[in-house]
């Protein structure tokens, strides 16, 4: 199998140029799909018979929750690549993912709280999904904290990479234990993303929003990645050329 494409991805100038070319595509596509999704979510989908109009926040909550997990997995995968093949670009990708993932997690928590508040009567409940999201936020903060505490950039990359891999192995364990804990105490559970039960007019905007958020993440990642590469490679010879053009 021809692995040249993989090795090319290890070259910072190549990735920088690629990111630069791809960013507008992802940016525009995510903007368009976000508009389409919001149209479907706010205007086309019928209001839930139980929860009324407030239910529409699920169209932001579900994608952000899904993305928070997906970004962590991407971060851990990039970290593993960086650890095994010693690729600087992979570590740069992992570093770029972290703040974005943490923001998605925070958004998921905030929208989750807004979603549940009318039904619970309080702003917070120890629902298993929300609790897992909260713990995920702590995992992100721990990762960013570790990165920030180590001065040597290569050591920071590698130590946080080990942490990310350990974290991703733990996420399913944590989720399982939280669900188990919750089932014991019968706390109110409202986070049911009834996938098959949802009629098409409700499901379609959800899927579009999911796509929109994924494209949005890709665009954000590419922008952050370029900045990260520029910062890491600031003394390299290829930088002045690229900055001029």
């Amino acid at each position, binding site marked *: 199998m021809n692995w040249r494409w993989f090795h090319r991805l290890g070259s910072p100038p190549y990735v920088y140029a690629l990111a630069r070319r791809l960013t507008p595509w992802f940016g525009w596509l995510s903007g368009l799909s976000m508009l389409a999704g919001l149209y479907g979510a706010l205007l086309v989908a019928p209001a839930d018979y139980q929860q009324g109009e407030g239910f529409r926040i699920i169209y932001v909550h579900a994608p952000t929750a899904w993305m928070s997990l997906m970004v962590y997995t991407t971060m851990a995968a990039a970290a593993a690549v960086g*650890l095994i093949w010693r690729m600087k670009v992979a570590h740069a990708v992992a570093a770029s993912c972290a703040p974005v993932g943490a923001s998605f997690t925070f958004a998921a928590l905030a929208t989750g709280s807004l979603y549940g508040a009318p039904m619970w009567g309080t702003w917070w409940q120890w629902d298993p999904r929300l609790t897992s999201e909260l*713990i995920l936020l*702590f*995992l992100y*903060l*721990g990762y960013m*904290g*570790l990165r920030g*505490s*180590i001065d*040597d950039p*290569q*050591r920071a990359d*590698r*130590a946080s990479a*080990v*942490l990310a*891999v*350990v*974290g991703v*192995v*733990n996420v399913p*364990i*944590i989720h*399982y*234990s*939280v669900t*188990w*804990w919750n089932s*014991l105490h019968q706390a109110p559970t409202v986070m049911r993303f009834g996938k098959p039960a949802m009629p098409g007019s409700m499901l379609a905007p959800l899927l579009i929003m999911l796509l929109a958020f994924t494209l949005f993440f890709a665009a954000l990642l590419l922008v952050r990645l370029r900045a990260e590469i520029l910062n890491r490679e600031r003394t390299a010879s290829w930088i002045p050329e690229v900055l001029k053009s």
Partner: protein
Amino acid sequence: MSSHAATIAAAGHIAPGTAGAADAGRLVLLRDLKLAFRRPGQLIQPLAFFAIVTTLFPLAVSPELSRLRAVAPGVLWVAALLASLLALESLFRDDAYDGTLEQYALSGQPLTWLVFAKTATHWLLTGLPLALLAPLAALSLGAPPQSLGAIVICVGVGTVALSLIGSVGAALTLGIRRSGVLLALLTLPLSLPVLIFGARATELAMRGESFVAPLELLGALAVLGVTLAPLAAAAGVRISLE
């Protein structure tokens, strides 16, 4: 030069009687135990912390044993978790500081095994005493005397998992100034499953019901920790030596 010294001088061309991994692990364990007992004051500290934290709850919540009994499992486990965390800071720190860890990495012996030996010693010095002290704390919080044996077992197994999980954080935060809070931030989310299963097992034990299910889950975590944590911790140690 004495005849012994002459032997040393000639030792170069005698094939060295290399120590096996088992010998090396045993020596690491013995050295850490000996060092710990040279400073017995430091050994007591996590236990004293555990005792003090459990005392905080009756003072902060209520002295009524019936109320304390309800929260006792949680209090016991949170206190054990925090006490473990405090002790974890020193798992690798001294060895990293004086170059012993570097010698371990260069010894030709598997670093994963040596790291495991250190973590095992750490549990013997911290986790096991905590498990033996937990029944006393539980009694003070209203636990029935019949459950005390079960509490020792639950805390014992749980602290094994905690020591292993914590060893990863301790390795990754080596060399960072004032790493105590960061170590806690990294280790606590990863320790939550241990807390959940351990507290549930203790609660069932205190009620006199069968606590086998959560104990098995706790044991599974410990086994998973034994297989994976030393690998990650050894990787962390190597990274700290770079």
